[in-house]
């Protein structure tokens, strides 16, 4: 007899130790296209082997199991605080089992109590919906790639970017240039045009819930997504910044409203170890009905 706790631990385990299919395919494709015997290609070979090992051993793909971001849709019969409480228990238990690293540090004292739970952690985006089931999506995003995210305020003189789509393009490509190999590329970008400083980054991360092989319903953004990947892959940064053709696996962009005074372009950089999974659960959470990726 299952429970919401068990379901959440399994979602955490699978997110941490198995690559989602769409990303795995993109990495394998990058490996085929990369220049043979260059150190960039060798890095991709090691990545491919690592993905297999992690799945077979049920151990984390990357030791930095990152920020824990839950995106949840609850039936109206399920109390939000109860969900959060159980999810926090699941996170701590998953840490004890080794699916997550002890990753949460008190910013004032420097102490790491090993529970992975604290003020602001994990992150929960919870909404109610009319369905009689629970949808849980989970993103684990490591610190290395988190640190190379960037938020631009247009106009930006340094990169000659004005308040238009061309300016957004310059900002996004500048973020890729500055990141070099520090975000563990080949990476995926999540971008939000607009918003305030908080919602800009929040919506940019929401883009990671999209499948890599989907299309953007807004034609100009769809074109920009493809163009950014093509241009980034001409920069020669390559896997790990070793040089090569595979610098980005994808770019996902959304636009949200902004104030007249503000024009932010928020770029979140996701590493190759793109850990993102999701499941539909029964209304009480006791059973996983299907996986989303």
């Amino acid at each position, binding site marked *: 007899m299952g429970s919401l706790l068990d379901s959440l631990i399994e979602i955490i385990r699978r997110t941490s130790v198995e690559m989602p299919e769409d990303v795995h395919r993109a990495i394998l494709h990058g490996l085929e296209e990369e220049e043979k015997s260059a150190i960039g290609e060798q890095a991709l070979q090691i990545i491919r082997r*690592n993905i297999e090992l992690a799945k077979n051993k049920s151990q984390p793909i990357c*030791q930095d199991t990152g920020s824990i971001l839950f995106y949840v849709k609850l039936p109206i019969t399920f109390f939000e605080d109860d969900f959060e409480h159980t999810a926090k228990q699941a996170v701590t238990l998953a840490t004890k089992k080794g699916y997550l690293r002890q990753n949460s540090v008190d910013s004032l004292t420097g102490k*790491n109590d090993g529970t992975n739970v604290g003020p602001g952690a994990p992150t929960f985006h919870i909404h109610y919906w009319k369905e009689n089931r629970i949808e849980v999506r989970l993103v684990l995003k490591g610190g290395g790639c988190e640190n190379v995210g960037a938020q631009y305020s247009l106009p930006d003189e340094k990169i000659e970017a004005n308040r238009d789509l061309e300016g957004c393009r310059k900002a996004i490509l*500048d973020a890729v240039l500055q990141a070099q190999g520090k975000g563990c590329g080949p990476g995926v970008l999540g971008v939000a045009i607009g918003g305030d400083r908080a919602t800009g980054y929040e919506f940019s991360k929401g883009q990671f819930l999209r499948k890599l092989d989907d299309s953007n319903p807004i034609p100009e953004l769809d074109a920009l997504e493809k163009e950014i990947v093509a241009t980034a892959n001409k*920069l020669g940064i390559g896997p*790990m*910044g070793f*040089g090569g053709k595979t610098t980005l696996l994808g770019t996902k962009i959304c636009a949200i409203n902004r104030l007249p005074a503000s024009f932010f372009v928020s770029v979140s950089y996701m590493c190759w170890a793109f850990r993102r999974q999701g499941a539909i659960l029964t209304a009480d959470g006791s059973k996983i009905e299907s996986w989303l990726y």
Partner: protein
Amino acid sequence: MLPLTIPISKETINSLKVGDVVTLTGTIYTGRDAVHKYLHEGGKLPSEVKLRDGVLYHCGPVMMKQEDGSYLCTAAGPTTSIREEPYQSQVIRDLGLRAVIGKGGMGDKTVQACKDFGCVYLHAVGGAAQVYAETIKRVTNVYMMEFGSPEAVWELQVEGFIATVTIDAHGNSLHRDILNKSTRVLVDLI
């Protein structure tokens, strides 16, 4: 691939060049943000930590404590090294390091320190936590546990740990080269 055993001589380090792929065997120690700050502020490591002619690994592993009190390492990929840039040259000098393992590269101060003191930067594959965990044959000790598990100094016995020289002991840096080249390419494409 060039096999290296630790401790490593200055001559061996000087023979390496950017692009060389090495495999390490011997004792390495992990050390990242907390311990670099600690050393920078005058802190000393316990005398049992043998880093002279040795190798420091920028890594926060996942360690599972076993019933007998020992530790099993279940994930051990590198962390981003550039955060240690303000401190690395001093640490290379004071501890007598022959190699620093990490990912993402380091900056000009570290490139200079590698040249001055006979050290190289070895770039491991970021996120390859399982591939590297397999190379760890034993976790023989842990120090500075008060920094928390990812930030502690873990003493690891490794065999066949693969990494690429991206900063050598002669002032060459793949990171600087790729940054310069990609910047020029972007100017044309933009």
